[in-house]
């Protein structure tokens, strides 16, 4: 995969989206009521590395997240998982879903 720094800029890395503290332990995946394999550690890794295509390919996963924070409440690295998912939705809405909102 190729790192797309433009996509990273769109994510406002370090602002709304930030999963750099993720230690890839998989607690989130284990706890997810939806049992989504991709969510969130691999998805976040793709996002952190600016893999635009891979992130766009996970629209379903990104929008099906319940934002229930069961993962977040148990995340040993303190990643704001729900806020990250929300931020990914915002980026997808703008850039992909054609939801030019204003």
């Amino acid at each position, binding site marked *: *995969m*190729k*790192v797309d720094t433009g996509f990273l800029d769109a994510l406002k890395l*370090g602002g709304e989206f*930030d999963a750099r503290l993720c230690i890839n332990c998989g607690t989130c995946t284990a706890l997810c009521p939806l049992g989504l394999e991709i969510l969130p550690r691999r998805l976040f*890794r*793709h996002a952190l590395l600016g893999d635009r295509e891979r992130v766009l390919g996970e629209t379903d996963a990104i929008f099906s997240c319940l934002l229930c924070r069961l993962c977040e409440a148990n995340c040993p690295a303190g990643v704001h998982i729900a806020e990250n998912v929300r931020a990914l939705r915002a980026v997808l809405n703008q850039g992909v879903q054609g939801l030019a909102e204003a």
Partner: protein
Amino acid sequence: MTGRKLGVVVCQCGGNISDYVDVEKVRAEAAKDGDVVSSQVQMFACSDAAQQSVIQEIREKKLDGIVVCSCSPKLHTATFRAMAERAGLNPYEYTQVNLREQCSWAHTHDRAAATEKGVRLVRAGIAKTALSQPLEKMRVETLPQTLVIGAGVAGLRAALALSDLGISVHLVEKADHPGGQVRRWGTLFPNDKVGQALIEDLVGRVTARDNIMLYLNSELVEKSGRVGAFSVTIRAANGERIPLNVGAIVVATGFEPYTPAPGEFGAGLDGVITLPELKERLAATAGPLTHRGQPVRSIAYVYCVGSRQPAEEGTRRTYCSRYCCSATSHLATVVTGLDPKIHQFHLFRDVRTYGKYEALYERALKSGSLFLRYSEEDPPAITRENGGLVVRVHDRLLAGEEVEIRPDLVVLVTGMVPRANDDLVRVLKVPIGPDGFFREVHVKLRPVETIVDGVYIVGTAQGPKNVAESVATALASVSKAGALLLKGYVDLDPLVARVDPTRCTWCGDCQTACPYGAIDEVEYGDRHIAQVNAVLCKGEGACVPACAKAAISVQGYTNEQITSMIDALAKEVA
């Protein structure tokens, strides 16, 4: 029988020995030796009362040697030497037999066998003592002057601290300016102090001191003498040779940044620089980073370049350079401070921001840096393609998938390597470790002392360190040198090599074998023989196996002593 009058003390150690060894039997067997005129069993030989009674025995029976059979000599050699001295006996006519760690405690299952071994051990102790000779400690005067080699941050700081103690310092620097590597660097972790300002402050204080002489463009070219009174020669800028007398030498010659070989991690490609180069660029700019006039929007750092290399034949750089993870994490936050939108990718092997520097790593993580771990077997590849840098690395968190980054700048996080100081090493005769840095006597307990008494190694001359650690060792050396020089004298252990002039025919093999230059060829009547310079000799005996004539041996370990000990150990116990 040698006609000696020896005393033997067997210690019960409150049961630690007597529970497993028949101490009375050991004493009785020892008493059978013709040279033994006194023998006793003590509950605790090291107790004041027991020592007092032994002292009385030595005086009353006019003993000329004493054997104490107790614990490991590591514990009480000094105790019983002092006891012997108080009794008026030469402390080197005392022998300690290890009846506890190497007998009773190792053979708790077999009292008869342990007792038999104890008998053999005490016989060996008696045999050795019977051949012992009175030796005197060598007391030599010390001169309150020091030589500090290297005027980097460690050398400057050591010079100031020595000066504070009233000890004069000759500070010798090879370059045409003081300050070493730190002078060229910008902000330093952990507190953002600027390297140049740090150095300017130290240099200002050094030059203001009357008892510090700074020699630039100068080198140490000769060293002779011994601890407390070295004669050294400095070759100054104009070629002038300056002789000096100093009591101690502090070696603060620093490190060199590792220079990657052309092509190593893309070294030599446009846009590929090293950690020190990035530090210098940052020190020289107030705004966002640029490269060839273009703004730098993304950086890839490749860690462990020149450090932690696989232990193959001839590889010295298997060590971690310690400072680079912390320095790079810190620099990443500096870079973010200049341009919050910059993308920074850290390709690391293990993040070793140890201790309180862990906070730097967290700051970097939270302020715009992404960390990708690579393995030693699968390092990142750096190329230039279509006018841009390309870094390919396999991301472990994506199951080894190849990640391609196109950064504007690649920073090779280079470690520390020892300076090429062959001439200085030869002059100092301080050993070099397998990594090429100067080597201390004991890594934990004597971290700045070298095997050459009075010569101390500090800062990165000894191995990779950050500034704080370098200064800590610099000040440690000052405490050692200060203790040595302010006392005014030093007592040297007399257990050194000695030549038997009747056997020596001077072949020079011992001189070749000695790494300390402690053997001289001297005239002896109408022939030449070897002579040991006792203050330079370390008593390790490297000369002993070299001598075909068995003419040289170490005091306390002479051929006669060792062979008689072997015979004593071998002799059957009735």
